[in-house]
């Protein structure tokens, strides 16, 4: 028989009350773990969606420059400024696309043919050439237009000129430079002739060594913005940081909701423990009178709170596997994110928080019990 035994027996003596307290903790743990996992899954989903653009710098006309285009000369300056790194200029437009009898609209990216392989991967077919009249289409566009015949080998009329679809791009996901999944990519030479334009919308700079990112940015700034702010230079790493910071905030917010439910559960433990102390005042008086020290009484009550917390956390932890898996599947569409260690860690965190919360909730009642006056406690009826 130990103080732990005494605590355990007291927990089972009031089994209904204990079950209710344990249920509260279990629900709290499930809430905090599941919402944490949900937030983390969203984070992981974003991570996967955003293509590997950590090495990318985008250069676009500055908002205050009064123009939305970059001239050929500016692009050449940028190309020189970035040295051995590859500068890929591109222009965009929106135009009607007719395939057979079906006419619709699509986003069109015009990229110098020699640069396309450095930016995009092909799933089928070949890259378009400057000399030919070929184009490539995004994966989503191809999938969505199976019925209309917009596929590899098809003839598509853009504006009033017909191009052949020579390739289908690999799915690229959401990017911060270009999003070609639902678009058509044409060689810049064709675009320039067809639309009679020689300007660009943006330049994408692929930096060979990510560590050089800041230096390359600085070089562009030095070259272009020395006198006035002509271009805006952004690196996707910075943009990503902001996106992930926002996603992290969502996770923290979701976990905050979970934490509130766990705090409520903690209050219920506090209540149960205070009831336990009040009911056992005389018993505490007897224990103290026959030689139980304050610290020992305190330990006994802390153990009680811990037992409730441990059982609740264990049950909550097990349930979190189910709810976490379900939530991940529903919100991210990919249940595999649940098995990512960063997701599973939230179950451990939820359990630890539950146990900690229970222990903290037990401190005041335990202190109260330990500091009862033994004489008054003995007289208590």
């Amino acid at each position, binding site marked *: 028989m130990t103080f732990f035994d005494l605590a355990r*027996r007291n927990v089972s003596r009031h089994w209904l009350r204990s079950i209710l307290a344990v249920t509260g903790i279990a629900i709290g743990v499930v809430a905090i773990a599941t919402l944490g996992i949900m937030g983390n899954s969203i984070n992981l989903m974003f991570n996967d969606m955003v293509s590997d653009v950590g090495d990318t710098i985008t250069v676009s006309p500055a908002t205050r420059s009064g123009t939305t285009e970059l001239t050929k000369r500016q692009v050449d300056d940028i190309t020189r400024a970035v040295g051995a790194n590859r500068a890929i200029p591109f222009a965009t437009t929106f135009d009607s696309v007719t395939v057979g009898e079906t006419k619709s609209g699509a986003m069109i990216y015009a990229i110098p043919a020699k640069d396309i392989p450095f930016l995009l991967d092909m799933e089928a077919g070949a890259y378009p050439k400057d000399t030919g009249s070929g184009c490539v289409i995004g994966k989503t566009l191809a999938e969505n237009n199976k019925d209309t015949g917009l596929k590899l080998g098809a003839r598509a009329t853009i504006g009033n000129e017909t191009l052949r679809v020579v390739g289908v791009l690999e799915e690229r996901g959401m990017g911060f430079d270009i999003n070609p999944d639902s678009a058509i990519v044409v060689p810049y030479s064709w675009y320039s002739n067809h639309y009679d334009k020689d300007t660009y919308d943006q330049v994408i700079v692929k930096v060979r060594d990510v560590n050089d990112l800041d230096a390359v940015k600085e070089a562009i700034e030095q070259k272009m913005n020395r006198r006035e702010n002509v271009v805006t230079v952004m690196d996707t790493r910075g943009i990503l940081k902001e996106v992930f910071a926002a996603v992290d905030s969502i996770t923290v917010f979701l976990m905050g909701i979970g934490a509130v439910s766990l705090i409520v559960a903690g209050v219920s433990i506090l209540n149960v423990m205070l009831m336990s102390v009040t009911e056992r005042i005389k018993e505490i008086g*007897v*224990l103290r*009178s*026959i030689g139980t*020290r*304050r610290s020992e009484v305190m330990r006994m009550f802390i153990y009680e709170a811990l037992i409730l917390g441990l059982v609740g956390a264990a049950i909550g932890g097990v349930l979190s596997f189910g709810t976490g898996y379900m939530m991940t599947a529903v919100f991210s569409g990919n249940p595999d994110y649940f098995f990512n260690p960063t997701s599973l860690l939230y179950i451990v965190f939820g359990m630890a928080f539950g146990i900690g919360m229970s222990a903290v909730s037990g401190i005041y009642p335990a202190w109260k019990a330990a500091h009862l006056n*033994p*004489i008054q406690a*003995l007289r208590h009826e």
Partner: protein
Amino acid sequence: MPVISFDAVTKVYPLPAGDVVALAGIDLAIEEGEFVLIMGPSGSGKSTLLNVMGSLDVPTSGEVTIAGKRISRMDDDELTLMRRDHIGFIFQQFNLIPLLSVVENVEYPLILKGRRDVSRERAEEVLAAVGITESHFTHKPGELSGGQQQRVAIARALINDPDFLLCDEPTGNLDSKTGTAIMELLGRMNREEGKTVIMVTHDPRMTEYADRTIRLVDGRLA
């Protein structure tokens, strides 16, 4: 050397309506092996005297020496250890721990002393000595009669081999026959084992077991 000595002990409870003097300059000494009754009307200070003797309370002034140690300036832990190691409490309402079995109740004070290795064996010995049969060892206190519960409480008080037993009306909740049996048991402990017994009672019939009676009136020895 006396087991307990009081030297000009006072105990004053400050209350908003004015101080209440519970003990007013008590001098007394209780020798080892004595059987002492403490009697007096309600409000005479019996309970306060018992609390101070039991190291549950400390005097406002004067000095109390228990088992050779002065308790006036002891902190809570020291007073608790004094109770655990030197005093055996027997209450009117038995005050056994309902969560523990009979034998666990008895071994509890020995476990507090860290003697888990011998606690069960010693508890069984003491229970047998107070007349509790083995078949009752695993029962919960609520499953026993009042007399049996008080025997268990006596066993609990004896397990740490205290310097004295402090009894607060130990027969007050028992019928007269069972009360007599309990008094016989305490008398035997006193005579045969040499245990010092201090008992607060209202019952004048108890004097036949005692070596002497301390009478209190208004916080003073009468």
